[in-house]
């Protein structure tokens, strides 16, 4: 054709650049090798840490190249864009051609096609064209696939194929990558990731967004009822548990104890057990009751922190003893009433009724020390995640189609020979795993040949 001799226009050259597999190999290798850098240089650390590791000039250079957050840098994202453009252009260039070939297969086994096929066989049969065409059709149907029959110029062509899907495998795989990218971008734009610490008994309605100064409103309240840590007998951690409540419109709508690998989800927002720690100091649990035993209040006394009791006075926990006068753990409290000197006395945990003997309107008992914990939760909303999983599923399907299916094609041509016998040609080809197809073809060959004898 005349077109081919013309020098390609700049546009054609750009297009040829983007549809080349060489570019794909190049991009893949460059992505792989640059990705290594971000694993050697620790990412997203505070600047002070980098200053400790690097000289000033090195820090300035690396910072300039965005090496401290390289996977989100413009140059890395541009490479991903190049990768995606390459992928898309390859698909746009090749997919329609492949579709055409699949839709309009070469159903006729002409001389040229026959020469290009490595697997073929020929023989002669007595009888009529139609008779043998029918017999071989049946043989192919039962042992391979139902053939398409074409009659042209006094010849009969049979064409049968299996595993056409294998031709689509590569496109499904490429499409899956684009879908994953779409899901990732959508999730980044429409979702958020945050982290929050909630002390036991406290509740939150907002979460600080990670890596920024923004705060995300949840639209509901999350309360941490309790946090607990379980250990194996050896002392290694076994489970971190947070008892969480979701409160909406003033009432508890969900309650769940979450552990690592078992998060809480409410209205598309997920709460993951991530960390824990001590919230504030140790407190002493003190129960207040009247002389007759009716309970009034339970106090959590922090060391030396005055706690008022209405109509009574101020209570303070001032000292603690593991073993007070051989009676076990005890708490020393000081009570200050208006206009009276402060009174100091000990409460023994093992003898809760002992304090009733003290001449006073209220009696106290010590329930032990407890430290208040906080739970650290990762909070995430990612509406793109299901798109990502769809992409992942497609990728696996695409790879299986591409690697483990093979487009196998078989042709039979029947022609009236000069000697009055029917000349038969059988030929086949496979898009991949030719060794396996050779065996299948041999079997088919013997099967088809033996038909009608």
């Amino acid at each position, binding site marked *: 054709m005349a077109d081919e001799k013309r020098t390609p226009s700049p546009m054609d050259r750009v297009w040829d650049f983007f549809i080349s597999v060489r570019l794909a190999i190049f991009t893949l290798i460059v992505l792989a090798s640059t990705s290594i850098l971000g694993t050697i240089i620790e990412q997203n650390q505070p600047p002070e840490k980098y200053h400790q590791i690097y000289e000033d000039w090195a820090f300035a250079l690396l910072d300039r190249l965005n090496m401290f957050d390289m996977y989100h840098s413009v140059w890395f994202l541009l490479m991903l864009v190049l990768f995606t453009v390459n992928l898309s252009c390859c698909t746009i260039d090749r997919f329609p051609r492949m579709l055409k070939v699949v839709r309009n297969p070469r159903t006729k086994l002409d001389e040229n096609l026959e020469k290009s096929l490595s697997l073929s066989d020929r023989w002669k049969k007595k009888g009529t064209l139609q008779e043998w065409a029918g017999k071989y059709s049946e043989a192919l149907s039962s042992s391979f696939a139902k053939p398409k029959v074409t009659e042209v110029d006094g010849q009969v062509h049979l064409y049968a194929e299996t595993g056409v899907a294998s031709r689509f495998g590569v496109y499904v795989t490429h499409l899956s990558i684009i879908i994953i990218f779409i899901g990732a971008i959508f999730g980044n734009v429409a979702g958020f990731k945050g982290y929050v610490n909630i002390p036991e008994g406290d509740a939150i309605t907002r979460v600080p967004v990670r890596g920024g100064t923004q705060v995300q409103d949840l639209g509901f309240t999350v309360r941490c009822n309790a946090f607990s840590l379980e250990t194996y007998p050896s002392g290694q951690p076994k489970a971190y548990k947070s008892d969480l409540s979701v409160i909406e419109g003033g009432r508890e709508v969900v309650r769940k104890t979450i552990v690592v*690998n078992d998060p809480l989800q409410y209205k598309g927002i997920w709460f993951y057990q991530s960390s824990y720690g001590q919230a504030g100091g140790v407190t002493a649990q003190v129960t207040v009751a009247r002389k007759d035993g009716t309970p009034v209040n339970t106090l959590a006394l922090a060391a030396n922190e005055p706690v008022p009791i209405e109509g009574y006075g101020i209570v303070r926990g001032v000292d603690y003893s593991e073993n007070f006068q051989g009676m076990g753990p005890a708490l020393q409290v000081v009570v200050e009433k208006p206009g009276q000197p402060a009174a100091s006395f000990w409460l023994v945990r093992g003898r809760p009724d002992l304090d009733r003997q003290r001449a006073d309107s209220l009696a106290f008992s010590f329930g032990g020390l407890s430290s208040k914990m906080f739970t650290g939760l990762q909070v995430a909303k990612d509406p793109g995640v299901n798109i990502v999983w769809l992409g992942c599923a497609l990728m696996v399907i695409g790879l299986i189609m591409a690697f483990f299916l093979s487009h196998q094609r078989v042709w039979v041509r029947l022609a009236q020979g000069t000697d009055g016998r029917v000349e038969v040609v059988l030929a086949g080809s496979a898009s991949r795993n030719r060794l396996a197809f050779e065996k299948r073809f041999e079997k088919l060959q013997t099967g088809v040949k033996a038909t009608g004898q």
Partner: protein
Amino acid sequence: MSNVILFNLTTFLFGVASALYLGALYAKNEKIGVFGTWVCILAAVVSTAALGVRWYESYQMGIGRIPVTNLYESLVFFAWSVNLFYLVVEWKYRNRTFGAFVMPIAFFTMVFAVYNDSSIQPLVPALQSYWLHAHVITCFVGYAGFAVSAGVAIMYLLKARQEEAKISKGVVGLLPPCKVLDELVYRAIIWGFPFLTVGIITGAAWANYAWGTYWSWDPKETWSLIIWLIYAAFLHARVTRGWHGKRAAILSIVGFLATIFCYLGVNLVLSGLHSYGGG
């Protein structure tokens, strides 16, 4: 514990099998190779039993869990996978010369394992998930495929050099023709690649369920992506003129070196979320 005794026996058997395959190659004696195959099969039985016993023993200790959760267990599981993968290849291609290049990988993995802590430890909270099984098993089957591919790629490079010089003498002369080796380098990867892909996906799904992010560019994740990219480049190289054979074989070896780094280097050298794998 009895599982460790069985694993030590496995190490010995892998060593014997490697020696037999190498011996068969040098002595040009097929019978020695046949003996090697039987030792491999015996090693497969012993190591499978060892994994089963270890699993059972973990239940007896009251911390029952699958034996693929620390460095020692992952090493023995990797060697177990390589051995099985190799036996399938040998059976399919009816050629024992591969053994001399693949079984030493299994043997040295086990030798390395023996120097690591073999005690059964309970699972830290982060690992208590059903995703663990799918994630670790698929990753290691993928790694095993890459190991076999790299072993054959070395054979390819040796053979290709000789074919270029048009000699067919010596030990290398016994290797299968370049065409067969090239094909096998490729076939091992088309098994390894989907498994690695599923391994990465299950890892992402698990990370999403445990931490709320399916991808955080943690060194282990990034290295698994690096391997994936290298083998993706390999698969594209195979269909491109000028990238056949030698370059593809080199990519396969580079890919396996990256795999080893992803598996061991990341835990031993870099820090990140997979720190429990280093213990």
